[in-house]
């Protein structure tokens, strides 16, 4: 009999998706979109959100196929043992790159904003410890933690947006489409490639591990739409409050946006609320990424006991910490990589795997 901590509810499943996709708020995601699409960034998110539904629906289609299997087992079933294993290894490499970038992003943020004199290795370690613990405890712990974090995050988010309303100027988002539709398409491609990965990570959880799995599709689409709405609000607020010239100048736009807020003349430094909100999201994203890789190796080595599982997690965590220290020379390289290489090197192959898998599933279903 499987352990109880391998099961989550459909709500927790969708909450994990929401938290992970909201991690695009700070760091590299919004900055890149703001710099490409300028004052049309909010349109970009709206339009890309609709187009982005395609890979999400394809993913749901894959998740629904053989609900007892995780993505790795599905791949070997769909592509055969040899090709399936090659695809699995490729996926692990791509997800590991994503993990490394995310850990770099998180520790770089903390180091830039709060702990500028602390060696970055220690900042990274402090972030990785709870991730190791959550992964070790299993998906149920991740789900429950996310459930707590999402409500805290939503309260913080609602409070921040309410505080910002008074500063928002509609004129700042005008004129629209000044540079035509190309920046929207370019920004949209990036946005879809960033938001697709968090949802892809969920495919590691077999649908049968979701207790009330009938609601999964409904909840997952809802959390996707909610994350699009959140991102839309964040970008709209960034542009309408700061103006596009200043908004696109900052490395952490939303963080500086928060610095403007003063509630009732007493509450200041609300940027730290936002930072907490973002760290919650990044924690969930990184935990799920480690969990994804861990699940693969547990399957490969047929691990049943806790000790080897912990060793696998520690190895993944250590490798990601070490590689995050060396992955980018500086933030310019990081931005360049995320803007130009990531969509092609990481997101595109994953999208191709999703499309081919969907195609094969539909053929197999028809053949039946």
């Amino acid at each position, binding site marked *: 009999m499987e352990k109880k901590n391998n099961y989550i509810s459909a709500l927790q499943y969708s909450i994990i998706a929401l938290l992970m996709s909201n991690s695009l708020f700070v760091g590299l995601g919004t900055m890149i979109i703001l710099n490409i699409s300028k004052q049309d960034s909010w349109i970009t998110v709206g339009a890309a959100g609709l187009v982005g539904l395609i890979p999400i629906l394809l993913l749901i289609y894959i998740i629904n196929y053989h609900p007892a299997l995780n993505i790795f087992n599905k791949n070997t079933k769909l592509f055969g043992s040899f090709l399936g294993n090659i695809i699995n290894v490729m996926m692990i490499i791509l997800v590991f790159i994503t993990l490394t970038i995310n850990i770099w992003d998180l520790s770089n943020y903390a180091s830039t904003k709060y702990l500028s004199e602390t060696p970055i290795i220690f900042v990274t370690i402090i972030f990785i410890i709870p991730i190791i613990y959550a992964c070790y405890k299993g998906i149920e712990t991740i789900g429950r933690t996310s459930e707590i974090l999402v409500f805290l995050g939503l309260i913080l988010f609602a409070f921040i947006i309410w505080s910002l309303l008074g500063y928002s100027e509609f*004129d700042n988002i005008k*004129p629209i489409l000044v540079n035509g539709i190309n920046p929207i398409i370019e920004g949209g491609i990036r946005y879809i490639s960033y938001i697709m990965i968090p949802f892809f990570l969920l495919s590691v959880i077999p649908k049968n591990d979701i207790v009330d799995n009938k609601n999964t599709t409904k909840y997952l689409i809802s959390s996707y739409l909610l994350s699009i709405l959140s991102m839309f609000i964040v970008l709209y607020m960034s542009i309408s409050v700061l103006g596009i010239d200043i908004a696109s100048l900052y490395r952490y736009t939303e963080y500086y946006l928060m610095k403007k807020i003063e509630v009732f003349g007493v509450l200041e430094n609300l940027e730290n609320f936002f930072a907490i909100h973002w760290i919650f999201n990044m924690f969930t994203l990184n935990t799920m990424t480690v969990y994804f890789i861990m699940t693969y190796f547990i399957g490969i080595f047929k691990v049943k006991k806790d000790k080897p599982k912990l060793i696998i997690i520690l190895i993944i965590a250590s490798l990601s910490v070490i590689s995050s220290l060396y992955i980018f020379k500086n933030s310019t390289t990081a931005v360049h990589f995320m803007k130009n290489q990531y969509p092609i090197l990481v997101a595109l192959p994953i999208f191709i795997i999703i499309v081919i898998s969907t195609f094969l599933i539909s053929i197999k279903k028809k053949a039946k």
Partner: protein
Amino acid sequence: MNKKYFVLLIALILCTTGCWNYKELNEIAIIGAIGIDYDDEKELFDISVQILNAKKTSSGSSSGSEQQSPVTVYQSKAKTIHEALRNIVLESPKKLYLGHLEILVFGEGFAKKHLEDGVDFFLRDLESRKVFNIVLAKEDKASNIIKILTPLEGMPAHSILQSILSASKNKGIATDITYDEFLSQIYANGTEAVIPTIIIDGKVSDGTDSKDTSTTAPKTKLRIGTLGIFEDFKLKGYLDQDESIGYNLLQNNLDYSIFSFPCDDKKNYAAVEMNSAKSKVSLSIKDDKPKADIKISIEANLTEYNCKSNLSDEKVIEEISKKAAKNIKGKIDKVIKASQEKYNIDFIGFGEQVYLNNYSYWKKHKNEWKNIFPNIEYKINLDLKLPKKGSIINSAKEG
């Protein structure tokens, strides 16, 4: 086994407490204001910082420290602002802390020629909040402004900030503008930045002496001046008082102000106090020419009336409203004329209205906007309501 992990976790957490970044309060020098000048001869930034005197603050108003200044000013020069700030550690025993910066003062010379070279640091710096206010030392150096002590507020930086806020809200000759808002105006299409100014009334040497602030009539005081106008990153001139009020009315920056106007032909005056104002500037394109339509609605109270009239008569009140409206309209007219004719700088933001609402026209004509802007025809519709006339119902002269 679990104990081992627990000990390992605790050990790791102890290593990662972030103590590398700790700063004791007594080890940092809290900066309230920074002044930026430029030494043209040596081609160096000349930075002056006003630091809160913690010794004075902690000892309160004990007799021994009564004559001690609440702030200390340090000055330094370097090729970059950051280096100049860091050079101050050679004189100050504490490391400078920018987190509580309230005011950034630009010297006139710096604002005229070198502003563009000096804006980066304060945007890039991690320590400072970007919401500090800015002010221009009118016809003066920023370092002089920084040195002047203020009588009613212990911290001069805070005093300057409060004066700007008060002059902006209650008089209308200043504009409360933060650093990021100022830069946003500079970067914006079709408009130019405007900045509040500050003037020293008296000798600098008197103003730096704390004895001066302990008298009932200090010899030297800081006074908020009228607005300074920029084109791109360069200071181009100043508006006068009426023009500054007109500007703030047009920009919806003004809520309260007093307007005095003649109420008869015998050089007698009346005053109204504005309680609320709302303006809307819209531009339309007709025959390939932009035309401005300015709508302003004001609610004001009659606060002084030194003429002889029957204020119970509604026609008289209507007449007073018209005269007050004419006076206010004159200020708006004056500021538009100043922008179109005197400076040919679109700080009113007509171009911005075109950019926001008629982008195709802006795209076509942005390079020739300097020629189009002075010829823009405008119409001012001012609706002034005068619902209250104070504690008395008639003119005091009328009896």
